[in-house]
């Protein structure tokens, strides 16, 4: 598809260049036609035709140039997008690693804390009396209920 598009673009560019060249050549030739008998009557139509050809050619040359400028800009932008996608992937990987490491550290801290509870708090079980309503309050807070 890209090849066909590129080929059509090249053919169109060639036609536009030819339009300008043929127009200019015809216009110059119209000065000589004037001097040649029998075909001198074609001088004016040739000049008008070539003028139109030059005008159209120059217009399409401008269009081609404009298109090329845009294509260059698009190519630059596409390259930037590609780089940004790579940056985005790298940032994602880095963040995932950071998240996993932090979660792992939290779990390790939890293990240490649970061990400390076993060592330091379990012995208080026989001394501490649970006031009524404490568990219910804590569970309601955990469930976010009134």
């Amino acid at each position, binding site marked *: 598809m890209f090849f066909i598009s590129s080929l059509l673009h090249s053919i169109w560019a060639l036609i536009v260049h030819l339009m300008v060249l043929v127009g200019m050549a015809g216009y110059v030739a119209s000065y000589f036609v004037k001097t040649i008998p029998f075909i001198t009557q074609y001088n004016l139509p040739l000049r008008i035709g070539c003028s139109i050809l030059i005008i*159209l050619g120059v*217009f*399409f040359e*401008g*269009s081609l140039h*404009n*298109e090329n400028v*845009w*294509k260059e*800009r*698009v190519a630059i*932008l*596409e390259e*930037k*997008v590609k*780089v*940004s*996608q790579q*940056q*985005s992937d790298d*940032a*994602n990987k880095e*963040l*995932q690693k*950071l*998240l*996993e490491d*932090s*979660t792992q550290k*939290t*779990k390790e*801290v*939890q293990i240490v*804390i*649970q061990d400390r*509870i*076993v060592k330091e*708090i*379990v012995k*208080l*079980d026989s001394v*501490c009396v*649970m006031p009524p309503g*404490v*568990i*219910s309050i*804590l*569970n309601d807070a*955990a*469930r976010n209920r009134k």
Partner: protein
Amino acid sequence: MKQILMVLCLMVLTGCVTTPVERKFPEVPDYLKIKCSDLIEIDPKTTKFSEVVKVVAANYGLYQECLIKSESWINWYNQQKQIFESVK
């Protein structure tokens, strides 16, 4: 006259070149789509103080994990926004 105008319009429009570059804000990665866990509840029948402390401490741990997820979300968004906006 109309035909000439139509031809002129077509000629002028050939100068309009639309060259869009499609860009999308990146999708959220799967590891950020995991919800925070619910808090653990204490067994209502327990009479042990240590059991209560264990559950409370575990819930603090769950909060810390959720905090990390939340911070990761904010970091992800800020980083991706910065990368996305750097392309102009």
